[in-house]
């Protein structure tokens, strides 16, 4: 099962929830930190023996001898990464999306790709949690290739928890796509509510099932609870505001480490998520079976033989 932990607003407790869920998994879990601009999961997991791997992206480079300064590459580039006004192209690697259009379409074959470092992937383990996190190189604008590289490390047979970046645009979409369920973490304030509605809208547009966790549930007002009730959104859990949790967080400790009953709260959350994901999978199977009309499912066939 793949669980993505996201939120519109930053600082609502995504990392706390993601790390706590990973630690609550009895059979272990793989935690992927896709907030590559500001990854924080490693501060709480403190993985041992980190191994690292650079993430490269292909970026064009012009062969001065072959280039006739026709300017076509600048015309082709949709991302303003090449300026060529009848001059040899000026290339801005930090704006390049690595689509390969300029290289493929250059009439002289004068452009080729070279690899540029966009960031790094680090992985390590502590206890039952395997952590993989990405870091975007400072000054590099494009987080998506690094997020994609982290996402390639989804575990096949164990639980995968994804700690997503904040927001509602491309980095979030890349982080959540392909997961079984999204946990939207929010706080019960006007900012929390507003950004939750944006996150809900995003999940509905891309068609992923989601539940809500209200963090610091006793601050602010009732707006988030009322909104969820109105929209029929399941509130998976509410985590109380506790100064002990805030102080522990400041030292890189999870809430479960200082308030033991919180640990079991996350175990219950994980259980509920698994049940929900199972239900969704069964429902999907049912739809598939109904759609392939006339075709008898495998299991039923063997029963008929008997």
């Amino acid at each position, binding site marked *: 099962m793949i669980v993505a932990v996201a939120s*519109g607003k930053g600082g609502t407790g995504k990392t706390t929830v993601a790390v706590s869920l990973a630690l609550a998994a009895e059979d272990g879990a793989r935690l992927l930190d896709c907030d590559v601009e*500001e990854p924080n999961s490693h*501060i709480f997991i403190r993985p041992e023996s980190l191994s690292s791997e650079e993430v490269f992206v292909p970026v064009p480079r012009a062969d001065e001898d072959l280039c006739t300064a026709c300017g076509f590459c600048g015309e082709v580039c949709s991302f303003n990464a090449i300026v060529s006004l009848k001059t040899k192209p000026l290339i801005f690697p930090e704006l390049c999306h690595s689509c390969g259009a300029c290289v493929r379409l250059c009439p002289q074959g004068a452009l080729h790709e070279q690899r540029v470092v966009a960031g790094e992937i680090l992985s390590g383990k502590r206890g039952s949690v395997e952590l993989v996190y990405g870091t975007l190189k400072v*000054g590099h604008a*494009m987080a998506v290739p690094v997020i994609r590289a982290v996402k390639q490390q989804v575990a096949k047979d164990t639980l995968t928890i994804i700690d997503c970046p904040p927001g509602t*645009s491309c980095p979030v979409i890349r982080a959540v796509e392909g997961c079984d369920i999204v946990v939207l973490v929010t706080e019960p*304030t*006007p900012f929390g509510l507003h950004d939750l509605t944006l996150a809900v809208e*995003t999940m509905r547009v891309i068609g992923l099932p989601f539940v809500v966790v209200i963090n610091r549930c006793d601050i602010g007002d009732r707006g988030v609870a009322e909104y969820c009730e109105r929209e029929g959104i399941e509130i998976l859990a509410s985590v109380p505001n506790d100064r002990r949790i805030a102080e522990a967080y*400041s030292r890189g400790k999870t809430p479960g480490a200082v308030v033991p009953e919180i640990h079991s709260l996350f175990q219950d959350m994980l259980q509920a998520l698994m049940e929900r994901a199972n239900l969704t999978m069964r429902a999907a199977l049912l739809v598939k079976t109904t759609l392939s009309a006339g075709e008898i499912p495998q299991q039923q066939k063997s029963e008929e033989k008997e």
Partner: protein
Amino acid sequence: MKEIVIISGKGGTGKTSLTAAFAALSRNAVFADCDVDAADLHLILRPEVVEERAFKSGNEARIQPELCSGCGICSSVCRFGALRKKCDTLGRIGYTVEPFACEGCGLCVRLCPEQAILFPERTCGTLFISSTRFGPLVHARLTAAAENSGKLVSLVRKEAKRVAEEERRAFVLIDGPPGIGCPVIASVTGADRVLVVAEPTLSGEHDLLRVMELTRHFGIRTLVCINKADINEDAAARIEILASERGADILERIPYDEEVTAAQVRGLTLGEHGKGKALARVRAVWERLIQHEAE
């Protein structure tokens, strides 16, 4: 006219609450909400929209099914996995574009032998120019799951600057996005000053150092203030040392204060709410910020 950007690296440190408080204290500013993914400043400034514009940016590929021969060239050249093979009711193979995956490079459009792929402009959000009780506000709303938030950020900044010049205002006060990627780079490049709102936690420290590396990379003068400082005074002190070693000027420490949330619930700036121990410190941050600009 000076552009001051308030960012944090880490989300949820109090950027928007502080920007709103500064808005009430400023006399002669235009405000810009550059956190277009999850804009919240309008919840406190409660703007009256004066002008509204659709924001179009880039293009997206769209296949005309009746022209598609199903050759698959588009799918083989696309680096973003945006083309999906589909079978229609008559059993013909064709391709469709997954809009969330398409980055709008146009390579498939140029290489399709049937010229079956259209390349319309993409609407990515809405830009608003508004008036508030403290001065003009330029803000935006990104379409859910849209691309190009960096370009929308640039547009918000450009419009805020234009309004400031027209109305001869001294400052553009920018509420920035979290992170260090495209939207943040679009918010800070070329600005006069960045104020980083940090929090005294290990995550806050880690994120502050990364965001300071970014402002240094772009050569922008940086100030740091620590919010919720009494959550961990030792961490606050350490962060101040690390930040000043990296050339930042350190402003006040603001204590954790439940009145900040209470003000937000009432839809008021901290000054209008008029209560709490954080208020005096927030005023002090603003005064020092203005002093820096006067120098």
